[in-house]
């Protein structure tokens, strides 16, 4: 089973089960991880599913591209090098144990 480690803005953290093929956003929402809003339900239209991935994910997947990259420019919390939109990152087996950090706010 794949487990993801979400770190919340208050410093607390949560381990949640994840299904390969689902997105980080879907995993967070279905497990009740707070702080991921996902107003457009994964349609790449709202930038309210902003997360910071870990170095391992960033180096293996590369950075955001195209529309995702553009939309990160106006996420509510300023983007950083590890920023991604959670609805655009599909979970894969090798991500087991990865750390995903939730920003202070999405709106």
């Amino acid at each position, binding site marked *: 089973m794949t487990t993801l480690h979400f770190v919340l803005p208050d410093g607390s953290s949560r381990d949640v089960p994840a299904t390969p093929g689902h997105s980080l956003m879907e995993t967070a929402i279905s497990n009740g991880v707070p702080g991921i*809003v996902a*107003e*457009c*339900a*994964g*349609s*790449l*239209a*709202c*930038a309210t599913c902003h997360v910071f991935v870990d170095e391992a994910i960033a180096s293996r997947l590369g950075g955001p591209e195209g*529309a995702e990259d*553009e*939309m990160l*420019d*106006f*996420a*509510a919390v300023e983007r950083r090098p590890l920023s991604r939109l959670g609805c655009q990152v599909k979970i894969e087996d090798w991500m087991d144990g990865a750390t995903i950090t939730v920003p202070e706010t999405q*709106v």
Partner: protein
Amino acid sequence: MSDFSVPGGQPAACPFHAAGANHEPFRHEGMYEFFASVRDDVPVFYSPQIGYWVVTRREDVLATLRDHESFSAEIATQPITPWPQKVLDYLKERNFTNEAVQVACDPPRHTRIRMIASRFLNVRRFSFYEDALRKLVRVYIDRITGLDEVDLVDAIFYEFPAQVVFLLLGETDFDPRKIKKWGDLRLNMVWGKPSESELELAVHDLADFWDYACELVEARKVAPGDDYPSFLLARRDGDDAVLTENEIKSLVFGLLIAGHETTTNAAGNLFLELMKRPEEWAKIVRRPELVANAVEEGLRYASSVVAWRRTAKVDVTIAGQDIPKGDRILVALASANHDGACFDDPETFDVERRNPREHLAFGSGIHTCLGAPLARLELKVLLEELSARFPDMALMPGQEIDWTKTISFRGPSQLRVRLRG
């Protein structure tokens, strides 16, 4: 379900048929009660009065809004009551070339334009306006301070959102009442049941309204500023493949409606529900940190957009109901927002509700309202400022609430309160 797939061919005792027969799409009195009475048994029904399939449950509404491959949004701004040829001819004569650019167009065109518009219409840029918004609200509040009674809609909610749109457009000297009047007319022309003579009158104003949007864009070509039309013109940089000039004019024209009618109504709805419940109002006064949640609960409990439209691009099935390609669908956002499958005790207005934000008042999917963060900011500032200044505000007893009469938009046309309790 094949028995029910032919509109009109349903047995009279069947709940699907009864729902269709009892659906009064233009009537706001009793709308929530109607949906509460059908939602459990009838996820989808055909409404013969308008010729639309009506989707009542949150899950199905969300799935429909998310699936832009199967559902087209092109119908979203087409007149519910078709316009006579005379009206169309007149618009042509007046060079009314407004085209669908956002809410009523599909990918790839929608994607191209949304990626540009959202570089201006986004939470980051909106947050720069917070101080200006607060100042504006305070001016309106100062005007009513000292009065005993006031109609909040007339005194503040009607104009304030239009003033905010002017901020975005860089307009400093224009009568907000004029924009409001144009907006009201357009809403009635598209989403209402206007008579032919009403249409023939309104169409002159519609053409004037379009001319105004065009002139505004022309003026920014000559003297650009730090505003939405200037931003769009700069992005275009003369390249029609990016955006055409007519598309920019249509975007400005669109914002002149989308940006205020809904927010005026949302403010009226929110304050009406609070005023009806002095104990909920008192909570806001005592604990202003509840404001953001109360704003969401207002949007959930009494959405200012109660229904939105799509067309089936292919044969689809919604909640077991087969719907053929080309048929029209009305997603009942108001009903979705009272769906007990998502919201505990859905008919209760509760400013401390756990999950009001799961409402669909702003739609969802690729067309999710681009102004949502701004509307939220406006409502938050209004609630913060009014509750701080008039903590004892109370509803004037015995008033009849009169609603706007369109299929999609809901808001009280007046809301009389006593400012000092």
